[in-house]
């Protein structure tokens, strides 16, 4: 079987779910005739028709609002944000309507909101953001951020089948850079389960999304020096796989928290609090964070390069922490 890209894996996942379940449909800007800004929905209009591949006005709030209405009726809409940055326009519908329906009045909203996030493509402040924490902070949402081709497909399928609203951040830097052969048949990756992408005994690097690959690169380099990193890929930010995170920390006793999102209020802060509270007695060193600085994502190549966490950052911090 031929290797497929991260982007193709998401497309396959959506396609298979649409074949399997007639209540699954996609809506968003340019998803139909054009096949999506990244061509992720290419061919879907021809296969599934206008009712199930809906080109919408540039109205993110109405896209999500309409998806909520359909989900309340038992449909399984997949709302595309053309760039994850634009999700801010739908913030109210997602956080106040979709997230709270089940709690407020017992109404399930089986909805997926997906969009390309992340930097490294010179997209500038509005085509590079990592807006996951707004949604991590909102009870009622599940938040997913796959790092591999396999996880991308398995998690989009789980997201579509989930009974609650799932915000699915796919990293656009990985879209066509990753390729992997996928197994045949109907399989999924469960939401809420982290994955150990590399086992190691010295330091746990807890991360997600595109940063997983930097952590793996750093781990390969450091192994030559006899420093073994354990790379924990969260895969799902909500619900968090606390058990797997804590198990890893208890094993290695040293932690680096790594993400591409900005520093303050990032996932690393939350993880640090959990580890400090629940694995305090196992720690042999300070909990270290490697994140983007608290700035918008800049455009110019040297600025963006400075902004994004780098493999060399991980290597340096890991060496210092190992020696601590």
């Amino acid at each position: 079987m031929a290797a497929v890209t991260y982007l193709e894996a998401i497309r396959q996942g959506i396609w298979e779910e649409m074949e399997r379940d007639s209540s699954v449909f996609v809506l968003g800007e340019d998803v139909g005739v054009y096949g999506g800004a990244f061509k992720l929905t290419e061919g879907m209009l021809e296969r599934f028709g206008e009712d199930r591949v809906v080109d919408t006005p540039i109205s993110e709030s109405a896209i999500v609002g309409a998806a909520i209405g359909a989900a309340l009726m038992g449909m399984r809409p997949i709302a595309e944000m053309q760039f994850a940055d634009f999700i801010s326009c739908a913030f109210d519908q997602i956080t106040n309507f979709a997230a709270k329906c089940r709690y407020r009045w017992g109404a399930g909203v089986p909805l997926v909101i997906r969009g390309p996030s992340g930097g490294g493509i010179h997209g500038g402040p509005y085509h590079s953001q990592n807006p996951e924490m707004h949604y991590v902070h909102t009870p009622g949402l599940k938040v997913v951020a796959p790092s591999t081709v396999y996880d991308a497909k398995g998690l989009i399928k789980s997201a579509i089948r989930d009974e609650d609203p799932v915000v699915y951040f796919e990293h656009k830097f990985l879209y066509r850079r990753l390729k992997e052969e996928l197994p045949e048949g109907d399989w999924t990756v469960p939401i809420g389960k982290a994955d150990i992408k590399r086992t190691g005994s010295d330091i746990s690097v807890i991360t997600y999304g595109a940063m997983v690959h930097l952590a793996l690169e750093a781990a390969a380099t450091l192994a030559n020096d006899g420093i073994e990193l354990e790379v924990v890929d969260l895969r799902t930010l909500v619900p968090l796989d606390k058990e797997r995170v804590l198990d890893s920390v208890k094993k290695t006793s040293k932690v680096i928290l790594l993400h591409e999102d900005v520093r303050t209020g990032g996932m690393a802060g939350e993880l640090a609090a959990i580890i400090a509270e629940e694995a305090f007695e196992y720690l042999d060193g300070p909990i270290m964070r490697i994140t983007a600085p608290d700035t918008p994502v800049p455009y110019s190549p040297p600025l963006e390069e400075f902004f994004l966490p780098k493999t060399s950052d991980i290597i340096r911090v890991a060496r210092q922490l190992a020696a601590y």
Partner: protein
Amino acid sequence: MELNQQTLLDMLYYMKLTREIETRIERKLYRQGKIVGGVYVGRGQEAIAVGSAIQLEKDDCICPSHRDMGAFLIRGITPREIFAQYMGRRTGVTKGKEANMHMGDMRRGVIAFVSMLADTIPVAAGIAMTYKMRRQNNVVLCYFGDGATSRGDWHEGLNLASVQKAPVVYICNNNYYAYSTPLEKQMAVKDIAVRGAAYAMPGIIVDGNDAIEVFKATQEAIRLARQGGGPSLLECKTFRMTGHSAHDDVKYVPKELFAEWEKKDPILKLESSLLRQRVVSEDAVKKLAARITREVDEGLAMAENDPFPAQAETLEGVYADQNVEAPLAFANSFFSQER
């Protein structure tokens, strides 16, 4: 639906039932301290919800706002459930999770209102798009006030519904005040109905205090929607005969305006017209009043005896497949261990 004697009587019943329930809530329970949260009533606006929702069919839906109690009642929400909702009881529509008019139940086709005005405008479009996808001949009635039309979601939602020819009737309770802000400070247009043109849908001005006129305008809009003609915008002109909520002393509204609109009371208008045309007798009206008092008394008595939810329910219902962890769960287990 035909506007026959039975329909007219039903309309009078639901309008009076609305008035009675809201009067108890606002002027008794709230003042007695039995309602701890906000109270929002639609006194003087009862004709709009009732004249429209009365003609819905079983699988149709409503997206009501907080001054549309009649629409809830017509969809089968009971006085007991409403009182229990307001008093935070477990038997309330939302089991104590939500306040006041934020009631929803998909089995009865009622979508719960949220405080962010106009959020239900695109939601209604999505429900209606689903009807279309399923080739179901149903409609959504989506209610909102004049203030909601200032929000972006209102415009995004109307536009999407129109592009999709979604079977929705958008019904505005134009009661002249958005909290304390009068219409002329909310919008530069004189009539909200003119905004329909921007979205290529009929924009109809209706006397919102005339239940029969509301019925007829809605009937036409529903007919258009069921035929695939897309959404309509009905601007029902009315007046809010109270403050924004029970705590609002409403000093910003000139007294003359209340006096003027008191004369146009929608319940008196319908009742006197039905009496004049001998559709109902004085005796029937008395019986109707007695029935309403009895139903409201019974509902209230039951709700007052209904239990509050258990505190542990706070953590339930956020997700379908798991409960949320209690904040002190770790601390409790950590400090209880032998160390």
